[in-house]
Structure formats: C-alpha cells, structure tokens
C-alpha cells in the first residue's frame, strides 16, 4: 500500500509543490498541524508543513525543499502517479482561529511559505485584517505569485535580500515598520530559526503575541521519541506534541537552533552519496 502523488510543480530554484492522495489526513487536518511522510522502504520519517487539505478529493498539498535524500528522491525519482510509502497525520496542535484584529503571517523558508495561505485564509474568514509577508533570498528562489497568500491577504508583501523581487530586505524589516505604525495585533511566522529568534526579540518589547513554527528534528512526530524537545518557559516541551506552533517569546532559541543541526554531518554525507549516484546516472 502507498499514497499516490497526484500533482508536482516546480516552485523555484530550490523548492517544489507536491500533492498526494491522503484522504485520512485531508478530512481532519486543521491549520497549524503538520504531517510526516516516508518516501520508500528505506526512507526516513520527514515532517512536512501542509499547504492545503482538499477534503473533497482527499488530497493534501505540500511545499518541499530539495535539501536531503528524501526530498531529492521525491523530486528526481517520483513522478505523478507514483506512490510514496507512508504519510501520517495530522500531527501537533492546531492554532486557535478567532478574531484577533490585525494578523500578520511572515515566512522566509519553505515550510512557512506553505502555511501562509491556509493560515491567513482561516484568519480572514474569522474577520481579521490579514497581512502576508513572504521573504525569499533572491529572484531564483521566489515562488510564482499564485502559490502565495495574496488572495487572502488585505496587505501583501514580498521581500528579497537583493531587492530583485518586491522590497529589498526581510520580513523583519517590514514588520518593524508595521509595528511602528501600530498595525500588528498578533504575528504568526515560520521558517528559518535564526529569523524567528530575532522576531521574538522584535515583538517582545511591544508585548505582541508571536506564534511560530518550532521546526525541530523528529522521528515519529507523536511525542514518542523526544528528539524535538525544546526548553519552553524553563520546561521541556516536545515541538511535535506541544507545538509545532508555539509562543516565540518562551522558546530557548539558542538551544533550539543547535539541536536542529544535530545530524548535519550525516545529512551531508547521505546527500553527497545520493547526488553522486544521480550524476552517475546522468540525471543531473
């Protein structure tokens, strides 16, 4: 048994979009929750953010970065119509969708780019004023606009570090301006942990609630292994079970950043072996 890939599109120089048949998840997924997928028999369990859940057709969409062996396999080996071994979810706690006032969603990496649309759509339906900020490194890494949160955003920004698309800078720069204009009641964000740490420091003095995706290395994703443990308000919490979206002001970011690089050496080795294989086959 497996789960069929129903769509695949390239998004940028580094990321792609994939849709799979997963009716068990599509019917129960809520904004803020994630899934864990395994590409094949020898694959690892990889947590993924969800772009959308299509209840009617029993499918879920994801944005994926070509970064490690699993995601390379998904991009280079798996075609539409092929199956992946496993996809489980939804996992973690949903975020609370209600009227907050002015809601920002800020993203600067693939997982959060995926979450922006669904989150702001839900927030807009709950009568919030929605502000989307998508940050990319440069033009090559920027997604086509139809994949971004524009249709559900009352205010919409794209930034690039080099200014090649949208505003030059980062979501932190835009947020700073918005905060100074007193336009922010709550921030949801995700992506690079280093940015989230800075974000926490940016909003803390203003007391603006800041709920972010705490991306950590996971195995099962159900609270069984403790790999994703973080220090939260001085207590040990599991990002998979108690998050993944948590109060940025309570996270010990330095430790979270360090823990997220625990297998960097092994990941690099596996990546090199896999890419060498692809080169040998003439795929790349």
């Amino acid at each position, binding site marked *: 048994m497996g789960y069929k890939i129903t769509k695949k599109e390239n998004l940028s120089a580094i990321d792609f979009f994939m849709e799979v048949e997963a009716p068990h998840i599509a019917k129960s997924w809520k904004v803020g929750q994630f899934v864990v997928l395994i590409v094949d028999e020898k694959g*690892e369990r990889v947590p993924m953010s969800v772009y959308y859940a299509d209840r009617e057709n029993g499918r879920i969409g994801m944005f994926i970065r070509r970064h490690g*062996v699993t995601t390379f396999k998904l991009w280079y080996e798996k075609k539409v119509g092929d199956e992946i071994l496993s996809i489980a979810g939804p996992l973690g706690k949903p975020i609370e969708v209600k009227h907050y006032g002015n809601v920002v969603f800020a993203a600067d990496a693939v997982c959060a780019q995926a979450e922006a649309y669904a989150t702001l759509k839900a927030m807009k339906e709950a009568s919030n004023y929605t502000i989307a900020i998508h940050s990319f490194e440069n033009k090559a890494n920027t997604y086509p606009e139809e994949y971004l949160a524009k249709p559900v955003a009352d205010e919409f920004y794209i930034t690039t570090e080099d200014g090649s698309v949208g505003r030059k800078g980062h979501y932190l720069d835009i947020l700073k301006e918005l905060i100074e204009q007193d336009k922010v009641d709550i921030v949801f964000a995700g992506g690079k942990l280093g940015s989230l740490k800075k974000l926490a420091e940016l909003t803390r003095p203003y007391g603006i609630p800041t709920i972010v995706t705490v991306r950590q290395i996971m*195995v099962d994703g159900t609270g*069984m292994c403790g790999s994703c443990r973080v220090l939260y308000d001085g207590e040990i919490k599991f990002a998979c079970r108690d998050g993944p979206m948590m109060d940025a002001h309570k996270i010990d970011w330095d430790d979270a950043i360090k823990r997220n690089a625990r297998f960097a*050496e092994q990941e690099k080795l596996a990546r090199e072996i896999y890419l060498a294989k692809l080169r040998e086959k003439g795929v790349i």
Partner: protein
Amino acid sequence: MAGPKLIKERVPTPEVPVEERVKSFVEVNLGYDFVSAVKEAERCLQCNPAPCIQGCPVHINIPGFIKALRENAESPEEAVKNALRIIWDDNTLPAITGRVCPQEEQCEAPCVMGKAGEPINIGKLERFVADYARKHGIEKELLKEFTSTENGVKGKVAVVGSGPAGLTCAGELAKMGYKVTIFEALHKPGGVLVYGIPEFRLPKEILDREIAKLKELGVEIKLDHIVGKTVTLEELLEEYDAVFIGTGAGTPKLLNIPGILLDRIYTANEFLTRINLMKAYKFPEYDEPISIGKKTIVIGAGNTAMDAARSALRMGSEVTIAYRRGREDMTARIEEIKHAEEEGVKFEFFLNPVEFIGDENGKVKAVKFEKMKPLGEKDSKGKRKIVGTGEYITLEADTVIIAIGLEPNRIISEEATALKTNPDGTLVVDENLMTSIPGVFAGGDAIRGEATVILAMGDGKKAAKAIDEYIQKKRLPA
C-alpha cells in the same frame, strides 16, 4: 511412584559467540532443536496442581504443552502441533513471549525442579514450539482450526495500537467471529515490538509472521492513523460496536537536569526507534541517521536500558550502564543482563545523574553523578530506598541514552476528554477493562504504565472476552 530420574541441569541452548554477535544485530540465542527440546521436556515433573501455570500471567497450560511435546517424540510434527494447540488456547504469540517474557519471575520462578536444580526452561520450550511450527507449516494448518467461519458477523471492533495488547485483542476477537480493524500510528505494525525491541532479541521476521497470521484471521490494519488526530474516538464509536485502546506507554520520561538539550543525548525511545524501526544502523543505505560516539553511558537498568546498551555496543561504542540503585535492584530480565555483561557492557551502581556537561559545539562530553547509598527500608515497589551521599563523580561520555521509564501517550485522552485518566496518564478501567466511556475498553501499558508484553497480552485477551459479552448483551432484544 517410579517417576523419571531428576535431571538437575537444563539442556543448554546454543548462542552466537560473543565476538560475532557484538558486530551484528543477529539473534543471540539460537533456541532448541527437536531432540534437545524433547530432552528438556522430559525433565518436567508434570506437577498437579502446577505452580508454573499460576506463575504465568495468562495461565498457559504449561505441563500440558510440555507433555504433548514429549509424548509424540516419534512424530515431531504431531507433537509440535498438539503442543501449539494447547499454547494457543491461552497465548497466540508464543514466538514473541518465549523470547521477551521475564520467565524467571513468572512461570519458571515457582517450578518445583528449580528447588532441586534448574527450573524447566519453559520460555525456550515455548519458543521452540512456535518456531518449529512456523518453519514446518504446522502453524498454517492449525490456523484453519482457529479461523472463524463467521468473520464479521458478530460485530465490528476497532483496536487502537498494534502492540502486544492490540494484536492479542484483535486476534482473539477475530477468532470469535468479529470484524476487527487495527489503527496504528506508525508505518509498520507491532508497536513496542517493532520500534523498541531490537532484532538481536526479537527478529522482525517473527513479528511479521505474527502480523500475517492476524491478517489470515481477517484482521485489517490501517497504518498511519493516529487515533485522536486522524480519527477521533467518537468517530470510531459511530462506526464500530466497541473500541479497544492498546496504545501502550510511549512517552519517554526525561531528566530535567542541566544539559538535557545537548547533542547526542537520546531518550532510549529515540535511539531504539532510529535503529529498530528506521534501520539507522544501516545508514546510509537507509536514510534515517544516527550519531554515536566512542563512549556511551546508558542511564537506567531495565530491559530498555539493556536493549539500548547492547545496540550502542553493536554500533562500535564502549558502553557503561549507570544505575542509581544496586545490582540486585535492576529490573531487566536476567538473560538480558547476562548477555550485556558477556558482550562487554560495564555496570556502575549507585550513581544518580545531576548534570550533563557539553563541549564548545554543544555535544555532550561528560555526565556528573551524585553517589548514592541504599537505606535499609524498601519503597512501595519493593526496591531499596536510596539517598544521596553529597559526593560527586564525573564520567566521560560522548553519547548518553536515557532509559529511566515511560508513560502513556496522552493523544487520545487529550482529545476524548470523557476518558478518565490517572495523574500518570494511565486510563481508568473497571474490572472488565472498560474505560469511563461505555464500549471503550483498554489494556496493556495504557492502563498499567510500564509493564510487560505478556501482561499486555493478558489484558488484550481479557478485554476481548469482555468486548464480546458487551456487544452480545447490547444486541439482545430488550
């Protein structure tokens, strides 16, 4: 009575030599062949009443199966078939329990032969019957006798979790004629049997065979389904006549001491799941990585600690088990402790960790312990109480595995708030193993905290009976 001559010593079972087994994950004990099994069976005194049956949590007719085995020594197939039939009446997973039960505390503890010499090797005989039957197609034949012809007619039951409790409950209900669907959160069935217990103690092909057996009985398994997330308990109750929760104790306890977030400090669950379920010991052939150094300290002294220690050893690390109590307080099976020692695992007693010390890269480099000492009195669990001495010692370690216990996962009880729980997360059940929600039953570690495979199986069986009674009563015309 001219009874059999007492043979005080057990017929030995061969084991893979230490130098070979520390380099691989192959099963250590090779078990009996037919001739040696019969020889061991002949040592049995056939006591009546039999204390071994009382010692067994599921009351297997032990003298009965041993007699069946030795009675038909000329026809091994017949002997094994008869023996297996007797075992299956009480235990459908003998290949597993024969390997993982703490027999020395259960059936073998009160064995009369144990008073004169060594007790009958009941565990290895049980394992022999199951293994021989599987290898020679006897199991398949016998399965036909146990397969209900009215599959699905009596009702539909959902079983949550595919560990020992769930597998047993599902098997028993299928045999009675129920349509059973198991919901498993992971991508492979087996629960702790697949993610927790290593290959060298329980080869996964044995588990695979047990799962296949259940499927032949008509049980359906839905993988990747987290009950409480993917589907709610309420939704299950709408579709099924009853639900059994066998979700085990999968939440690791952690030490809340400085340095707990350092790299290369694993919970035993993470370490073992990476190795057993995800085959990280075959990285990079398999994609899941693991990072292990040259000096590993395992904290704890139960079966999980032994499994973690022996796995770390096989991955090329020196291993020391550090336990806050004494040698005689260790909770692991005797065989596991023996194997660990043979393989070169070192043991340090009366050491309680107080701090993990890291290097400049955030990796653990040492563990600081307080030396403990025992007091005369015992605690509620019958273990000697211990106190700190105020003296400290630091041991070098570049890998630490924490194996200090597990609690039930609360995913279901957090979602289904009507489900009553105890403070430790275990589910509250009545004498029929029914929870606070009518029609929802539970057993195994989900109600006991951390216990054994056989107790979980006993619960699965008891719950199956209770579920049958519950459903049949519900169906009676008013």
